[in-house]
């Protein structure tokens, strides 16, 4: 497989997954708003942090309101919006048509046109929900088509790696924001909830929902929704498909099919150990944010290694 094509496939999968995640986040946040009483101020700014677009957002908007966020993450002509990411996914698909199943290309193409035409209506909450749900469904459908029609060769391996790394990245960001909201550490060792206690459960449920994790959490954890368990579930549950560890394991399994995989494999194993060997209760005590930052750095290293191992053509 050509390096250039591999790179485009990888990015296409990342963009598509990011589109799906962005749509989920927006949807969940909008719903969460409806669940919380007015006096509980929900920070829309959290969405900016989760999507890693703090600086970009600041160049465009002064305040993080619902309408600004919706505009920014759905319609704006910038890297963070669903519409632009879909254009990029489509562009990558258009330049890898020769290796992609035709139906999947057509679906991406459709979704791109759909998002453009629906973007304007997204300022209205009800229309926005519909748009986001359609986007999520379509992204799922596209990945389903790829899974159903692509041979398990290098091409599909890059789809899976792109998707898995994007998921691992996103879930850690979400955990980070949830933790910031809910655990404060005014002094060493003392943990006090800042968020009004009765609503803590609702917030963590939303975190779970944003990852389609609520049902599985219920079935597998079997305890009242609480921060520590949610963090553990989303980081360390090997069986849950959006959990960080599950995705790292996926990468380490699929990359065995690729040539020259030693460096990337080493980095992935390191990240897996970092996730699995941590004690969540202690992390919460010490401050989850530093931990997540270190993890994010490891993900970036994996991405860089993927890039220079397989995408940078030898001269």
């Amino acid at each position: 497989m050509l390096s250039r094509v591999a790179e485009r496939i990888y990015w296409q999968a990342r963009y598509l997954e990011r589109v799906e995640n962005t749509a989920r986040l927006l949807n969940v946040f909008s719903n969460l708003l409806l669940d919380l009483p007015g006096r509980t101020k929900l920070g829309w700014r959290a969405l900016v942090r989760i999507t890693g677009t703090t600086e970009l957002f600041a160049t465009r908007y002064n305040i993080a309101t619902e309408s600004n966020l919706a505009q920014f993450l759905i319609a704006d002509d910038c890297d963070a919006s669903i519409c632009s990411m879909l254009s990029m996914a489509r562009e990558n698909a258009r330049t890898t048509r020769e290796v992609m199943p035709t139906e999947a290309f057509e679906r991406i193409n459709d979704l791109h046109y759909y998002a453009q035409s629906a973007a304007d209506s997204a300022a209205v909450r009800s229309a926005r929900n519909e748009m986001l749900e359609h986007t999520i469904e379509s992204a799922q459908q596209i990945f389903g088509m790829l899974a159903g029609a692509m041979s398990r060769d290098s091409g599909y391996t890059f789809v899976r790696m792109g998707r898995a790394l994007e998921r691992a990245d996103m879930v850690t960001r979400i955990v980070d924001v949830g933790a910031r909201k809910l655990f404060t550490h005014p002094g060493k060792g003392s943990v006090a909830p800042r968020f009004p206690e009765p609503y803590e459960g609702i917030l963590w449920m939303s975190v779970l929902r944003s990852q389609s994790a609520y049902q599985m959490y219920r079935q597998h954890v079997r305890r009242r929704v609480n921060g520590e368990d949610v963090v553990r579930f989303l980081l360390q549950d090997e069986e849950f498909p959006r959990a960080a560890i599950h995705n790292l394991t996926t990468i380490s399994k699929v990359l065995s099919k690729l040539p020259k995989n030693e460096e990337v494999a080493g980095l992935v194993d390191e990240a897996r150990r970092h996730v699995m060997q941590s004690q969540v209760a202690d992390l919460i005590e010490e401050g989850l944010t530093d931990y997540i930052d270190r993890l994010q750095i490891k993900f970036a290293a994996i991405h860089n290694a993927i890039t220079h191992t397989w995408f940078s053509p030898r001269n």
Partner: protein
Amino acid sequence: MQIDWQTYDPGAFHDEMIERPGAPRPTAQQLAAYLESLDRKDLDEKKLAARLAIKTMGISFTVYSDGQNIDREWPFDLIPRVIPAREWEVTRRGLEQRVRALNCFINDVYNGQKVFKDKIIDPELILDSVNFRPQCLGIEPRYGVWAHICGTDLIRDEHGRFMVLEDNLRVPSGVSYMLENRRVTKRVFPELFENYDIEPVTEYPQELFDMLASLSPRRQAFPEIVVLTPGIYNSAYFEHSYLAQRMGAELVEGSDLVVENDRVYMRNIGGLSQVDVIYRRIDDMFLDPAVFNPESMLGVPGLFKAWVKGNVSLANAPGAGVADDKIVYTYVPEFIKYYLDEDPILPNVPSYRCFKDKERQHVLANLDKLVVKPANESGGYGMLMGPQASVAEREEFARKIKDNPRNYLGQPLISLSTVPILGEKAAEPRHVDLRPFILQAADSYVTPGGLTRVALVKGSYVVNSSQGGGSKDTWVVMG
């Protein structure tokens, strides 16, 4: 009723579907009746469905001057064009014959030049041509074939006779649209197919693949075949990607390839792997900066030498364009006699060559009646449409012809045949041409039918998609 063939009047032109108002030609009778049975709502729905299908399928073409919006939807008309198989059979043989003769000629130009010694054509006309590549002298590609893929433009005159308008031997495009047009029609108009026995067109990518594979220098079960594209900004990018996909070949850009020890390799995730056959969709001059245009960013340094050494095959071969020239075109009937000792099956459009004194006089005296074409342009650019041109335009062309007679050719304006298109209110006649695709290596293959291009503007002869033309599904119908 939306379509009423009684009110459809092709006038003095040869209409391929409706002979005269109310009288469809025999092969088109069922199609005409079916279309008549649809009401306005049905037709509007079908039109919309076709547009949506094209959008979804991502069938697009690119227009250079469009700036940001580089990717345009393909303009398509729903009513298929019908060609009876009996008529097509003759045309098919004519096309094969023509491409065989052209390849004999190209091979002769680069090996031996018998055609000059026998005074069939003046060597200057060839050796001074911008498409002649002296670097190719003495090279003998397999089967003596240089132009493996040819797109020949045909028109039908007022009597319905097929004539050759031009031979495209460099990097002819359009075949993907031919295939996609059929797919769109099947998707939105499946009912149409019920009563017809239509030659399928879907084999083309397979035929192309087999032809390319037969050129592989390494004799191995799975030769590595690639399609070399200039990239996404090229107007035919859709087609490059489409053909690569349908053949299961890699689509590569120049930067994906590298030459080492006169062998061509592509840069893979696992390192380098050798390439056997390149279906190149880049012009000669951009193929290899070491040999041709040194500024080219699209090509691969060393590619030409790898080809000369026989380590990689190029289709079409560099230098094949020497026969893709409107002056050479006028000699093709003579080449057919000279090389094949056969009578030409398909006629040329009568042509006046401006480098011949008498013929030039005729062109200059009749600029208001003739079409004047430059020898080396494609896509309908740089032409004079005499009858519609202004006095100033004609004077300008008279000057150009006198300055560079070798570069111009005059032809009478042929009354192109028409076919119905689905207009806003009714079916209306519009002019069409036809581009079949011919493959040649050891054997030949001709697409049944080809790409029909249609001038969507009433009365217009301009069928190019870059200039407002559309296209139609083309049926070769048995029985």
